[in-house]
């Protein structure tokens, strides 16, 4: 079983549309994991049945019992996150600022502070129209700990893949280079980088590739909207060959992707689109590399 993670550095390069197409092509041989937990969109194309759901708890925040509090202010003075303002003579916790370190609870002389576990979202296991399983999640608005929810989604996907003897786990990652991305890369066998030929696309590709390289994972790249700027596409091609990154193929700037999305379909479900052939070739290449 091989774990293939699709990331992009920059957002909006077509990562989810392409991953959903792979999910259709992979069919029963794969498990899909949507690890872009704070903007999870895969379900809009794969039409899951939300068969199983569970609350996800992670991290803690401080709660002050005003009855027990002796107003000494020690908690406020040690808090590095300005999370304990004094309002109307009471020390209260600003939930947005609280990092959950628990330092205040530990030093409170009146034992008035409790660290309470946070429900930060939900995770789901669904059957999709591609006849495979999708593990996905939804982070609560403004919640912390997206990295841990990503780890949970990946772990569940892996358990299913092992139990049902699937060949691949296809993971849709999140943009950026921070904790959710690091979390989605851990344990990956192969990374697919989806980029676009813009100065931003290339810049972000280089940064995210440095991160991939730190993990020592081999990678391939898809250049989406390749005809928007031939000059930058050439620069990307050079970057790929200089760094031994597999070039998996190029896709043209094509509003058929948006049309398909608007119909709730992946691009490979649309009638005789040339995009369908290009994406099928890419999927076959990925399978060939990860036999």
């Amino acid at each position: 079983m091989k774990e293939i993670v699709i990331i992009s550095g920059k957002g909006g390069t077509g990562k989810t549309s392409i991953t959903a197409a792979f999910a259709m092509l992979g069919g029963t041989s794969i498990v899909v994991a949507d690890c872009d937990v704070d903007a999870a969109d895969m379900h809009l194309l794969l039409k899951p049945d939300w068969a199983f759901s569970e609350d996800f708890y992670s991290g803690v925040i401080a709660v002050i019992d005003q009855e027990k509090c002796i107003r000494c202010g020690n908690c406020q003075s040690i808090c590095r996150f300005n999370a304990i303002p004094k309002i109307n003579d009471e020390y209260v916790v600003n939930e947005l600022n609280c990092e959950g370190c628990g330092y205040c609870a530990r030093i409170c002389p009146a034992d008035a502070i409790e660290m309470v576990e946070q429900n930060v979202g939900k995770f789901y296991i669904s059957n999709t129209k591609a006849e495979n399983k999708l593990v996905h999640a939804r982070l609560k608005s403004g919640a912390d700990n997206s990295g841990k929810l990503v780890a949970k989604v990946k772990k569940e996907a892996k358990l299913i893949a092992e139990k049902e003897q699937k060949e691949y786990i296809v993971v849709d990652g999140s943009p950026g280079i921070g904790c959710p991305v690091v979390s989605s890369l851990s344990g990956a066998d192969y990374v697919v980088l989806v980029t676009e030929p813009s100065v931003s696309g290339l810049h972000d590709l280089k940064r995210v590739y440095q991160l991939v390289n730190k993990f020592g994972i081999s990678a391939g790249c898809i250049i989406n909207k390749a005809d928007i700027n031939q000059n930058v596409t050439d620069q990307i091609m050079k970057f790929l060959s200089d760094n031994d990154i597999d070039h998996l193929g190029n896709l043209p700037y094509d509003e058929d992707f948006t049309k398909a999305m608007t119909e709730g379909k992946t691009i490979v479900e649309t009638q005789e689109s040339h995009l369908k052939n290009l994406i099928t070739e890419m999927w076959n290449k990925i399978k060939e590399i990860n036999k």
Partner: protein
Amino acid sequence: MKIAIASGKGGTGKTTLATNLASYLAQEHQVVLADLDVEEPNSGLFINGKLVLHENKDKMIPEWERKNCTLCGLCNQVCNFHAIIKLGEQIMVFPQLCHSCYACSELCPQNVLPMIPQKMGELKHFQTSNFNFVESRLDIGQEQAVPLIAQTLDYLKNNFSEETIFLLDSPPGTSCPVIEVTKNADFVILITEPTPFGFHDLILAVETMQELNRDFAVVINRHGIGNSEVLDYCEHNGIDVLAKLPNDRRIATLYSRGELVYKKVPEFASELKKIADYVLDLLQEDK
């Protein structure tokens, strides 16, 4: 006045709007553009300016001094982030996991865990012909964007007057990095595209702004593709739609080259003016 430009979904045009709006407003007003998408900062690619300051940004991490350590293990116990672990005769620190809360350091009975600065990223301040531009970038391998964002906001506060129009280019998503930017903003512009992904992620972003009690409005980018769900939703929920930036291949091409759009595409400029006028109205009200 601080205006954050945010979006749930990535790639909907935050940077395009932030850079063009900064340049446009700067013709007559004092503007600072700050790129707070510290994981993947892009605004700088669209801006030619003179570098006036370049400094490293640090976070504070405990460093173990073996000599007087009694291996009591209290540090391991107090750390809620598993960033400091007692392993046999060793105390190991994992800087990426550390939130710099100082608990281990200050509670250590032997004082053998002093907090020392460790580089997490860099801040650069540029001056263009008519506005200031500040960007921070996180070092590769650093996982936490929030401390760097917070320090960059401090830099803005300490170096510019409050009357300045601050445009904050935010990270995508709805989790901690976006919260760190938007909770400090006076107003948030949510930019989205009229597609099912754009719509779905806009709802998440709207819920987040409501949770934070922020005033916000929506800008639609690539107007003309997709469907009318976003517009219907905004109308139904009484959310202002400030402008509809057109879907135009010329814009995509200009963006791909790192060029500002409004100087070359009049249909974009006229919509941008609507957003600028709205921002200036907010500024008036604020005074």
